[in-house]
């Protein structure tokens, strides 16, 4: 397979993630959009690692991205739980005040 095919898959995942972040009103749904965006970036890293002179560095950076995505999910989930405890909903449109 060529590099462009991998980049195309990464682009589709990235766009889906961005639209998911923009249109979902559920806070957990926004988080899932973030995960999709990070996965699109990961596909690009791995594809460049195979098909260009980047070598092994692309795979190393995709591992860093995976670990940081886990950290981000943990913190965002804690924030979502706090938000749910304050507002009794997970709708991000209700988050108009910083201190509930």
């Amino acid at each position, binding site marked *: 397979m060529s590099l462009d095919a991998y980049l195309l898959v990464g682009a589709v995942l990235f766009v*889906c*993630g961005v639209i998911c972040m923009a249109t979902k009103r*559920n806070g957990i749904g926004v988080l899932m959009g973030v995960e999709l965006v990070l996965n699109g970036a990961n596909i690009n890293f791995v594809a460049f690692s195979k098909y260009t002179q980047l070598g092994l560095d692309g795979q190393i950076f995709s591992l860093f991205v*995976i670990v940081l995505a886990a950290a981000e999910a*943990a913190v965002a*989930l804690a924030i979502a739980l706090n938000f749910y405890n304050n507002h009794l909903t997970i709708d991000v449109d209700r988050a108009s005040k910083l201190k509930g």
Partner: protein
Amino acid sequence: MSNALLISAASAPGGNLLFFVFALAACLCAVAVVAAQTVVRMAFWLVLSLGSTAALFFLADADFVGAAQLLIYVGGTLVLLVFGVMLTASGPYLKISTSPGEIVLGSAVALLFLFVVIASISGVNWPAPAVADAGDLQTTAGNTLRPLGLSFLGTRPDLDLADGDQLSPGYLLPFEIVSVHLLVVLIGAAYLARAKRRATGT
């Protein structure tokens, strides 16, 4: 064993078929994540999409990254997200619907954005790969475990052997920083999620 089968299939003509199957699955499941209304179904489609992405990693000779994707992402992060769904939804099929105008606007912006990205991808002439030049020690068989582990320990035998006289830095310091960062973040998240529940409990 199955990794070796996948890698050998990637270089065979059947690897193209496998790539198309998994690429199509990843893209369609990502679209289904956007189109799904309830958050549980979104989580299900996201599991399928990330699993197909892991298969794509296996096909691209990145076996350790694919395994880490399956273990950490699908097995860890998504379970965490599903727990978040359980803890925040009042019912299993909680539906917070988006208005139709926003859906139309979002899909139009999505198509335009996808067009821009694809146009910019196809317009670039990417540099040619180094054909198995630095790959004396690394990814020829898709066995990336040993070079990845060595580079996380701070040495890059693939680059050193290729260039001969220079020592290239590894990734020991970023690895340590990421480890401590993950520890701090997890402790902070546990504290953040605990404190409020105690406050509402009293």
